[in-house]
């Protein structure tokens, strides 16, 4: 064998793919895992936002009660108990808006993206 032939064989071997490969469904499984991870992050973030909003509202009510005017807070809660039906209706509407925003619109948007 000539020296050049050995050079050629060595370089060919360097270019040969090693016999290592990932499972056929690696990409699909990885995407699922990333999607789940990202969804979990989004869920936690949204939960933290909602918690922050509720805590802020409670803090405002507490500060108002102790530092500004107790009567305002007492009147506010008595208003809620006196107008329970209206309050429940408003809560229901807000809940529906939240559902439409988080679930329905996302579903429709995904379907529209797939169709286009």
């Amino acid at each position, binding site marked *: 064998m000539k020296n050049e032939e*050995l050079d050629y*064989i060595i370089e060919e071997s360097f*270019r040969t793919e*090693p016999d*290592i490969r990932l499972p056929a469904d*690696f*990409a699909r499984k990885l995407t699922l895992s990333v999607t789940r991870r990202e969804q979990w992050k989004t869920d936690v973030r949204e939960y933290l936002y909602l918690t922050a909003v509720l805590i802020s509202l409670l803090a405002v009510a507490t500060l108002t009660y102790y530092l500004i005017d107790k009567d305002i807070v007492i009147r506010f809660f008595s208003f809620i108990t006196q107008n329970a039906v209206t309050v429940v209706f408003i809560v229901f509407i807000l809940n529906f808006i939240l559902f439409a925003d988080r679930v329905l619109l996302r579903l429709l948007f995904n379907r529209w993206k797939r169709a286009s």
Partner: protein
Amino acid sequence: MQHFNPDRCQTLSMNDAELVAQILNGNMKSFTFLVSRYQKLVVHITGRLIQRREELEDVSQEVFLKVYQNLGKYRNECKLSTWIATIAYNTSINYLRKFKKNDETGLDDKAILDKLTDFKQDDYETIDLHRYIREQIELLPVHYRTVLTLYHLEEFSYQEIEQITGMPEGTVKNYLFRAKALLKEKLQFVVNESSLKLVKEINNEK
């Protein structure tokens, strides 16, 4: 009969910049496509560096997770393949450091030659030589394996290998040259028929 899939068709013709833009817009199908497109590159780098098949899937998964999390920071200053290869290289090196498997950087040529095995075939066919050389590549120190994989297998340029590994261009060229020289030294007898006969005789005596 194969069904026409417009999504697939659209993705197949996508270049890297479009692919990145689609993923950043939340298109996970594009991410699947990116993984499929670059999984060979990643598995070649991680596989050659860490050499543990049972860990290969986990390390490759970690690489693509980092790719996804940092995709927003990717600027078109280098090719996407170079950027992904950099992540794969750093992840593999960190893995090796974590498990203290990187103690081979200080080996001199003699120590490396001692690590390599001898070619023990009575006769040499090209196919045997190929197999032998591929086995010896796996026995070379990690930096040699890295540059051989990036240069010969993935066809990156010297500058790109410098970007990926942080090794100066001269060092890359030196590792490539020395890797080939070491393997040639082990196989020197095949260029000389009389040496081959001697090897055969020794093997027969055994």
